[in-house]
């Protein structure tokens, strides 16, 4: 795909969002059903939004990605998230699973299932797995405690959001005696699910604690080095997707805010005339422009894709995007706090993206260690 082509396709995605998604998610009072989310994901796929995987040769993933493909994918994800983050999350999650299977040379049996999910990192923050950080830094060190905590194994619990209960899990596994990384597939009988009833954000999706209770049914046919490369690629791509969704959420907040501040009158003039409001609008615009530029910058050089670069962006951008979304909520006054206006949900969704798959503190520690070892 060329840059011009990507730009043109992005306008189609924008139209798709306006025509199909905005109206659907306008009623913020009600949580949209998972069925609707699945439908939206299917439609988005029809529009052509898919994680770039063309041009790859086996696992030679560092040289063949097209930058325009990545720009199109990430900005499309942002566009979808600006209407509804859960749809973008589900789309991204499914795309990642498919990519892993394709890059790893395909899978048989359960790997061909309808709704696989990749558990590249589990779920419990500093207490357990949240970020599979330090993997490439610690793999060769005598640090088995950490490795046990960062890689799911039998009995591990992993928190995951999904619209459709996964029918198979694709999990990186680390064999301690051999110090080898591999990718394993668990079918539906090999894991159990406990739903978390109330979570902070992504209301439309189920949040489940997935526990690995059985044995894997298959190991993907790739060796240690390729498994490691695939793992690094997954971390990078997953994080970039989260950044794109976060940008999209703020774009959605900005659209709502600009509309509201133009309509809401105080003292005979719209409140957008007030410096206090203009400062908030400026903060949101600044965060949007920065995030877009950073994301594009990284997408333009996919050969430099690395977990470090993606995580560094996440650690810096997500808190700024969350603050900007809070400023947008504040512009609504009391209405921002009510579910009807959708602003409070945007703030919650953004917070969720900030904390899952690596909190800012975890990332800083990871980057420090990674840099020192390098």
């Amino acid at each position, binding site marked *: 795909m060329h840059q011009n082509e990507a730009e043109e396709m992005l306008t189609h995605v924008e139209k798709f969002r306006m025509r199909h998604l905005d109206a659907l998610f306008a009623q913020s009072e009600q949580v949209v059903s998972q069925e609707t989310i699945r439908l939206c994901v299917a439609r988005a796929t029809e529009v052509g939004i898919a994680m770039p995987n063309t041009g790859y040769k086996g696992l030679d993933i560092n040289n063949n990605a097209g930058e325009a493909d990545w720009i199109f994918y990430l900005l499309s994800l942002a566009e979808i998230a600006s209407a509804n983050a859960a749809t973008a999350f589900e789309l991204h999650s499914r795309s990642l699973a498919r990519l892993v299977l394709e890059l790893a040379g395909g899978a048989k049996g359960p790997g061909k299932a309808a709704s696989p999910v990749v558990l590249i990192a589990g779920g419990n*923050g*500093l207490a357990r797995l949240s970020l599979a950080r330090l993997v490439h830094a610690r793999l060769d060190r005598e640090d088995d405690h950490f490795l046990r*905590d960062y890689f799911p194994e039998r009995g591990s619990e992993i928190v995951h959001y999904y619209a459709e209960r996964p029918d198979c899990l694709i999990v990186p596994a680390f064999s301690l005696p051999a110090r080898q990384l591999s990718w394993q597939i668990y079918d539906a009988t090999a894991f159990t699910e406990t739903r978390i009833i109330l979570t902070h954000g992504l209301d439309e999706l189920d949040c489940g604690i997935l526990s690995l209770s059985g044995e894997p049914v298959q190991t993907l046919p790739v060796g240690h080095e390729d498994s490691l490369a695939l793992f690094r690629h997954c971390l990078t791509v997953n994080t970039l997707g989260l950044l794109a969704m976060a940008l999209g959420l703020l774009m959605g907040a900005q659209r709502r805010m600009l509309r509201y501040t133009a309509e809401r009158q*105080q003292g005979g003039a719209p409140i957008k005339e007030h410096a206090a409001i203009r400062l908030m609008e400026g903060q949101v615009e600044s965060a949007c422009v920065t995030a877009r530029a950073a994301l594009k910058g990284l997408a333009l050089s996919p050969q430099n894709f690395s977990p470090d670069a993606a995580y560094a962006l996440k650690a810096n951008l997500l808190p700024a995007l969350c603050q900007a979304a809070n400023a947008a909520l504040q512009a609504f*006054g009391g209405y921002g*706090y*009510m*579910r009807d206006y959708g602003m409070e949900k945007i703030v919650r969704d953004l917070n969720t993206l900030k*904390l899952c798959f690596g909190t800012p503190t975890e990332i800083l*520690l990871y980057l420090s260690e990674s840099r020192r070892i390098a």
Partner: protein
Amino acid sequence: MSASSTASIDRYEPAIAMRHMRELTRFLAGYAPSTIWEVDTAAFPGPLQQYRRSCRIFAQSWLKPYALTMDAIKNSALRDVILREAGKGGFLSDMLPWPLGAGSPGVFLKPLHFFSAIKMEELCAACGGLGLMIGAHGLGMAPIVLSGEVAAWWRFAVPMNQSNLRGDIRIAAYAITEPAAGSDVEDTDGARLYRPKMRARRVPGGWSLTGRKVFISGGDIADSVCVFAALEDEGMDSWTCFLVRKGMPGFALGRNELKMGQRASSASELVFEDVVVPDNHVIGGLRNGWSLNRTVLNYSRMPVGAIALGIARNAFEAALEFAAAHSLAGRKLADYQEIQLMLARMFTLTSAMRSMIWDSASTWTARQYKASAVKVFCSDTAMQVCELAMELMGNHGLSAAHTAEKAYRDARLTQIYEGTNQINLLGIIEDQHEEIMAYARE
């Protein structure tokens, strides 16, 4: 590491090392064996100590166990039980001292808003929503108390206090906000240009009120509402406070809002259609509503700071508990330096909030610049604390079961109600305008 070397290292920890010192030294060094909360409380005069302890005991017994339930679902039966216990405990009648109410006998030692701040921190450290439900009653009573009309105290406040102490609950609410005009009635510039929609028309023997109010805390359970309306054909400068009772013809409850947090307390729409109130239901005098409103807000903004403090403390305590209970790589989370740094930051921030509140609320008059500064600083800081608590817990922080998530949602409202923080910041300048101008002239 041997047992003896562990012991010698422990001796370097201040609290442990001090155990070996004489009692007098321990006292002088401030390391008497006690919790930080106890040390803070012990510094108060007797009646205030007693008040703080009673607030804590009530909050931990009646609010904390139901916090998550009341956040998740509307349970009016449970709500009524909690209100009844609060009433019998004197927490719904402490705006006036005995014999007019159940206010602490130490009311002459510290100002009213100091007591409110103590109470709101303790209640909201258990649950921001339930704390607000109880605290909003105090806000509803404030215009009656601060009007300075002793007759109004006897007519309205005293019977409500007595009823609440018996467990027969009568709640008051405060109604100023009109649809799409929240900030207009919280800020001088906004008010100067605002044309109030809620109107009071003269009728024989009283006033007929027509209009709507929104976001009224506790509006759905209120027996009495202090509602502000402009007189017919006049502007905001005619704003007057009227007391409207539940059951008066034309007074109805509109929708209850779906809120991000503090969900145990409702935010209701109140509808008034030709509600006739007698003349003696005017609170604080005709056309004095704007001044009365400002006075009430100056008194209530410091307790809002205390609400934020309570919520932040709740998040901090949840994080502390989590760090003590969970392990990573064979070590307790609380043993990791990065976790200790986060916990220490949370402690520092909550201590700073408390110091500011206690210092500002110690002055007998509640001035706008001080009240607003407390409200802005504490609400912003509470958000920082809650964010840190959630981050410390990682993905666990996203689950409602771990309290920090709820604390975050609860804290967010403190940046909005009683005037957004932006309105309050401008209020600080407004109140200090003459002094600032004097600098400019120099």
